[in-house]
């Protein structure tokens, strides 16, 4: 039997997810648009005082990025579950740990990375200090990767539930808290002129921990979902 090398399979899955995303470009743009629109809501809801907005920009940007990531992670496995692709993935002879990493990577590329790259635009609109923009991008890029890992755990645990829509929020938001704290602290530190490296190092540590452990939880969650 000409079995498929695992790396080729991971690349195949990644290509599949990216292709699916590109086929409905709306979906790629959506988290960005959501990000932008919710950020626009803040001046409307909180009042347009530029000093206040600038002061809270790190927190606002991070909260909204977190919501964007949360809302997209729900759909990550759902359509694959509904149409039976997930059964096929679980039956496949390839190691599930790595397959699942491909999914997470695709999710991060489509939402986290794009968000991080778009964030400077909105940061400027909110009046974030210029020296904080690079740390914002770096912290978002690292932090959203952790969010993707954690979000995928939530997605895998709720995939077989019929209307999981917001249940995932309950499962996942408490776990997002540390990322939010260190992410927004990094940006705040940059605004205040302190070094951001310690914060980024902590985010990177969380990421390594996540990459090492989360796929096990995701794989277990998917197996449970298929069985239920």
């Amino acid at each position: 039997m000409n079995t498929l090398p695992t790396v080729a399979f991971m690349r195949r899955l990644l290509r599949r997810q990216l292709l699916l995303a590109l086929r409905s470009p709306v979906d790629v743009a959506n988290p960005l648009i959501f990000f932008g629109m919710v950020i626009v809501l803040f001046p409307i809801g909180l009042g347009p005082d530029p000093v206040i907005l600038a002061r809270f920009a790190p927190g606002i940007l991070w909260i909204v990025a977190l919501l964007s990531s949360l809302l997209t992670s729900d759909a990550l496995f759902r359509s694959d579950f509904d149409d039976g692709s997930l059964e096929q993935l679980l039956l496949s002879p390839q190691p599930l740990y790595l397959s699942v990493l491909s999914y997470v990577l695709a999710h991060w590329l489509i939402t986290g990375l794009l968000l991080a790259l778009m964030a400077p635009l909105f940061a400027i609109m909110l009046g974030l200090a210029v020296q904080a923009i690079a740390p914002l991008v770096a912290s978002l890029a690292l932090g959203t990767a952790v969010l993707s890992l954690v979000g995928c755990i939530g997605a895998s645990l709720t995939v077989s539930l019929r209307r999981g829509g917001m249940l995932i929020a309950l499962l996942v938001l408490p776990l997002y808290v540390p990322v939010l704290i260190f992410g927004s602290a990094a940006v705040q530190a940059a605004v205040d002129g302190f070094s951001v490296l310690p914060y980024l190092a902590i985010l990177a540590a969380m990421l390594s921990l996540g990459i090492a452990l989360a796929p096990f939880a995701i794989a277990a969650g998917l197996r449970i979902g298929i069985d239920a």
Partner: protein
Amino acid sequence: MTATPVATPLLTATDVTIERGGRGLVSGLSLQVMPGEIWQVEGVNGSGKTSLLRVLSGLSRYGYDGQVERAVPLLYLGHRSAVKPLLSPLENLRLHPGGEGDHTDSDIERALAAVGLAGFEDNLAGTLSAGQQRRINLARLYLSPCPLWILDEPFTAIDREGVLALEQRFAQHAQAGGAIVCTSHQPLNVQASVSRLSLDRERAA
């Protein structure tokens, strides 16, 4: 095939008992699927065919008693057909999450032609008809290197000619030393001996 001294079973189920929602579906079933065999699982709606097939294929890992041993890689096609509406038939197979073999595009095109989808390779699957979407999935029967097939109502939504072609493929697979466990509400017209396993009897007992 080269002569093998003793044929080993591809799938062995020992004393399998399945219960769902307080109803016993299968009790004490033992089954050996040998190379070249075709098993048709029969039973009325709700008799437990799908439940049994999911246990045999390893998708249900809990909720049953007994042992199931799978000696070889298997191909499972269920009620849901793992077809992405946003990908073309070609892409659906090329990027399939089953990941059991490495196929070139011309392999895939040949398989798609075999299930009557020649000319539709590059349409998005979502625009195809119900039967055509099922056929994309069935193209894996022409691609997969797995010797054991577990098929849950493979003929759903397939027209008469399509069923004939599939039955030929079944016979060919069995001849080549593969084995098939399938369910269908229609009788199988295959040029090979078909063993039947009826779940209705079990339930009545």
